[in-house]
């Protein structure tokens, strides 16, 4: 029963994030926009490009959606509201989201089209940048919680949320999450001006609808991950636990979506150089900082 409630919340969250995304893209807030767009997409044709790698082309949208849903499934909305509270939940989030890259790689290679292929390999490069900092930040979370179980990660923040306890890790994780969800300014694989749609360029109709849905669920999953890992999840006064989780998740999603409206897209070479020369040392420093604080505190 709680699993169904979580899934319903996930769908509602994806819808609200789609409304927010429309706002960040056009500057207009249209509550019915995503529903109309989705129906419009379903009513349109969807072709497969000539001589594609059909398996990869068809699998990509499904894999994107499934991996995002699985990542969201291990993140708790409240102590009881979670689909599967795995003992290695924090690691599982990361494992599921690694397949986002695989999905985009398939979408890039599958259609045998120039823009998509550049975009697909670009995203693999982006992964080389954000992937290490993200796992290192999660390791620092696990150090404090003494567990990889997401409900225990939240419980460990009762005194002080991790965003304040390890601000460097928070910043690193937040930016890496934006990279992972390929949100502007890290939207290198879809880059509307540079690659005319990139990995999405050959998808249309129902396939595009599934891909967009996967992207929205991905943003929700990552916002929920930021909430669980750094903002104390359901912890908060007065309101019921699930409401706190929902509010925090939506606030994080809004921040992620709006940040990209006011800055230009980054260059790939810079993204990689910054993550490796600055991001990874900072993430290691964060682990060291948490280690020392934990030793001193005990």
């Amino acid at each position, binding site marked *: 029963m709680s699993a169904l409630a979580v899934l319903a919340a996930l769908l509602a969250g994806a819808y609200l994030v789609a409304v927010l995304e429309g706002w960040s893209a056009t500057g207009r807030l249209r509550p019915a926009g995503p529903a109309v767009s989705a129906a419009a997409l379903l009513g349109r*044709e969807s072709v497969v490009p000539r001589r594609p790698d059909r398996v990869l082309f068809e699998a990509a949208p499904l894999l994107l959606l499934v991996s995002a849903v699985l990542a969201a499934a291990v993140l708790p909305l409240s102590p009881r509201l979670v689909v599967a509270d795995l003992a290695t939940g924090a690691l599982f989030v990361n494992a599921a989201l690694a397949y986002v890259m695989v999905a985009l790689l398939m979408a890039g290679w599958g259609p045998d089209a120039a823009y998509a292929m550049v975009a697909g390999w670009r995203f693999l490069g982006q992964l080389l940048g954000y992937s290490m900092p993200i796992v290192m930040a999660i390791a620092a979370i696990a150090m404090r919680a003494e567990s990889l179980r997401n409900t225990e990660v939240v419980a460990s923040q009762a005194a002080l949320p991790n965003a304040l306890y390890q601000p460097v890790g928070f910043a690193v994780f937040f930016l890496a999450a934006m990279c992972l969800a390929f949100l502007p300014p890290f939207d290198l694989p879809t*880059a509307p*001006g540079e690659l005319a749609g990139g990995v999405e360029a050959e998808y249309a109709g129902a396939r595009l609808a599934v891909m967009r849905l996967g992207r929205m669920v991905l943003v929700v999953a990552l916002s929920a991950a930021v909430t669980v890992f750094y903002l104390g999840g359901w912890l908060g006064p007065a309101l019921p636990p699930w409401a706190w989780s929902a509010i925090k998740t939506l606030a994080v999603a809004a921040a992620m979506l709006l940040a990209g*409206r006011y800055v230009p*897209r*980054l260059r790939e070479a810079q993204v990689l150089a910054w993550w490796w020369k600055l991001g990874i040392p900072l993430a290691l420093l964060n682990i060291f900082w948490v280690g020392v604080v934990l030793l001193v505190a005990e």
Partner: protein
Amino acid sequence: MISGARQGSPAGLRRLFAAAMARDLRAFVVPGAEVARARGLDVEAAGLGMTGVPRHASVLLVVGELPAALRRAAAVVYAQMMRPRAVLAAGAGDLSPLPGADVSVGLSQEELEEGVARLRTAFARGAFAPGAAGFEPEMLRARTEYACPMHPEVVQDEPGACPKCGMELVSREAADGGSGPHHGGDHGGANGDHGHGGHGHGGMGFMSMVEMTKDLPRSSDGLPMEWVEAPFGPLFPGLPGGLFLKLTLDGDTVAEASPSACGWASPGPLTGPADALAERLAGIDPLSPASYRVLALRAVEDAAGAGADERTARARAGALERERAASHLGWLSGFAYLIGHRWLARRAAELQLAVLRAEPAGMPGLRAAARSLARRIERTPLLARRLEGIGALPGGTGASGPVARAAGVRTDARCGEGAYRALGFEPVVREGGDALARLRVRLAEIEESLGLAAAAGSLDIPAPRTATGASGAGAATVETPRGTATLRVALSDGEVVSAELEGPSARHLALVGRVAEQRELADALVGVASLDLSPWETAR
């Protein structure tokens, strides 16, 4: 019913989806969003979403008349759009090979909005139709050709045996313009060679990599790789429409760039009655019509020996400066779209439309808005890092206009004009010569031009009929938003007998290779866009 309706009876679920599609129209703009804006159309305000991906578009919005090459490109885009799809023509004449427009309107915002409303109705009613017509122009059909797998140079239209080795020829689709993987000098593609490898060398059991890669082109890091040609124009969303740009990609690096432009047909607009030359010349470039109008008027006046009085010159300067500000803002909007700065793209477009519609009295307010925009851009995080060192060109490359002034060259045709001296004009010069410096020059010029336009006090272009029956030769130079344009005319009895027009974009087009080659794709595109090419002002 719309021309690109989907097959099926419009009932049940289909009716529901058609209603949704009618509310959620997304337009692919031909020749490009910058032309729509330059003509004063705000597509998004008219209720159309915009997309640069043909697969995601449901409406092909054609703005203005298109040359034949662009009509063919538009037909390709239309063919690649998903049904249901429709053509919305704003001030477009002949559309063939595209099907006729579903809705035709004039070039004004009101008409566009009314046209979108009509299109919505048409979509809701006719997105699905039982007898939907196909779109199968001859130009889209693939030609089958026959090639020898052993000898890539043997290609013929008929099946048969190879004259060199006697092997049976293999059928394949003919390439249009030869895109695809190729190995350095020889062509024929990876397929032929590799397909053969399996048969011919099968007995050897093992092929040496050195042997197989010796003919491949070398990249800058010394690795032998295959290069792929990909078109980034004429209808690429991040670049001006009409710019045919073919990039040879080595991974995501541009190995070679070959640009060309749609341009105007020579001598076309140049010949004819001299009094109407301004009218004709203003039509060649939708991005800067006023500049060419003034250029033609001045050249004809010079040839007829009739100089313009001070008031006329001043009013023309006002019109030119208004156009410069609008053109730079239009460039800024397109450039911001290319680099993914969505807020800036929208804001610059709004300002451009406001400048195009403004009266002289409104200029000071717009100038203040432009100044605050420029200040905000200077403070935008990451922007300088994105643009620094991209598309670097030193001075003395034959460039003019903002491209030259951004490289520290003090060149501006306006310096020598009396009307500008009276207005206190001083050219904007910056150092750096890269995309960032060009952005800064244009930002400063927007502000300066709005100030000059306000000071000029009038923005119209008086066109006295000076050339009736006149004979003689003359020349004029105008600093257009993109650089110096020169027109030489010879009149005989009120007719232009010979004319020679030289615009800045022809010179800048030659610089595309220098700013793009050996650059990462995104950087190459930023470099090309920072030149602010107008594909329209070069002769075909």
